[in-house]
Every structure is written in C-alpha cells, then in structure tokens.
C-alpha cells in the first residue's frame, strides 16, 4: 500500500484513495483534425513504459478528487515527486 503525496491536500495519503491515470504530459491536441493517422495513433496508444523514472497521472479520487502528476520509479514504485495538473515536472527534484 503506497503512500502518495497529494499536491492539493498537501498530505501523504494511502494508495487505495487514488486511481492511476496513465502516462502524463500527453496533451490532447487542440486541433485533432490536423494530425495524420500515425500521429493520432501515437497520441492514443504509444506509451513510454520505462523501467525507471516515469511521468504519470494520478487522481485523488476518494480525497480531493483532483488529477495531478507524479514522477515515480517503476522499479521500486517510489514516488520521487508529485505536482499539480498543468504544472511541469520539477527537473530532477528529489523529494
């Protein structure tokens, strides 16, 4: 049961209050019609799936109900940092 620091509640809360939202920073194109099928495929389906630092989205579904972003190490499952939706990942910020 991982403890996740919710950037809105500013508290560490248990994993069962959260839902996972997939890879982060894949912004939906403002004008989808402008993308060709390969670019649209990348937006929909291609994922980095790294072994190591992964920028991803979580939602504090049973808490403040907000989506936020996180950098997590997919080998140790340790959260390096969490930050609010719309913000960029603090580069290399170690928590």
């Amino acid at each position: 049961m991982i403890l996740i620091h919710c950037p809105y509640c500013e508290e560490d809360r248990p994993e069962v209050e959260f839902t996972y939202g997939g890879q982060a920073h894949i912004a939906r194109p403002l004008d989808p019609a402008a993308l060709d099928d390969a670019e649209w495929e990348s937006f929909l389906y291609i994922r980095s799936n790294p072994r190591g630092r992964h920028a991803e989205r979580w939602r504090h579904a049973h808490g403040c109900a907000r989506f936020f972003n996180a950098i997590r190490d997919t080998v140790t499952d340790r959260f390096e940092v969490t930050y609010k939706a719309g913000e960029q990942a603090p580069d290399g910020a170690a928590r």
Partner: protein
Amino acid sequence: MLEIAPLAVAGIDLATGTAAVNGMVSGLPVCIAPAAPLTRWSLRARDAGALSAAIGRALPDRIGVVIDGIARLGPDEWYALLPEGTVLPGGAGLPVSVVEVTARAVGFTVEGAGAVAALARGCPLDLAGFAPGRATRTVFETVEVQIWATAPETYHVEVWRSFAPWLWHSLAAGLALTAGLD
C-alpha cells in the same frame, strides 16, 4: 455432491440501522447511531470569494477544515452539512455551482473512546491526529465515505444512500465481533 450450507444473512437482506448500537472495539466503548436529518450541498467554484458571496456564508480556506458546517474538500470544492430546512441561493449565472444533495447521502455518528478503532477497521487514515474541526473524503474498505471530526471522540460519517446498509453492518460487525473479546 458437495452440499454447502446456504448463507444465514445475504447481502441483499441488509438494511441500514435505525437505532443506536453500542459495543466495544479493542476494549474501548463505541456507539454507532444514525445521524439527525440534515441538508447537504455540494458547492464548487474556482474563486472562493465569489462562492462565499453567492451563498452568503463563510468558507474555510484550507482543504480538510470545517467552518460552520461547511468543509473544504478540494481546491474548488466545498461540502455543506446544514440544519434541516436550510436553503442556499442557487448562484444562477455566477461562475459557481450550488447543488443540493440532501437525499444523496446518509449520515452516521461514531462516538466513544473506541471510535477511532471502529473507523480504523476499514479506514486507512491515521485518525489519531484527526482533530475536531477536520473533515475529509476517504474510504472505508472499498466504499467512499466522508469523515467529519465534530467533537472529541465524535465523528460524523457520510456515505451514499445505497452503500449505507453495507457500511452500517460493517461498522456494527466490528462491535459485536470484538465485544466479547477483552
């Protein structure tokens, strides 16, 4: 053929309790009772000031804090538990959302020295530090609830109506189960 005895009480037969239940959890007394009728409001706005003006009531600024029956649950979300009959202005045309949800949820009170232990059976939060005047949305096992610390060793639990029978019996089972132990 392997005959398996039928269930004594099935999930479909559970009903929300209508009277208080008293018992012990980890050797401490607890009383679980249906809460008094209330009105409930979901209040949303990007700008707390606009919302406060729209409904004419003060709003807590920190998430997890309650002021006069209104808790701040998120960056743009407040939830009000107000006396029966209260009506709030609808905020029409304003960049706010005022929605009455009185009937959506049912409230229980969990009181006594064993209240934290009773809630800890299913809530993963460290409620020891959850002082009166705090409120939060969290879970009890797989069911979403809100927990309000209304007074020392006194908690108000909000749960959506259709989950209430399960939650009532899960809380009550903790009492009967451990009542005889210590």
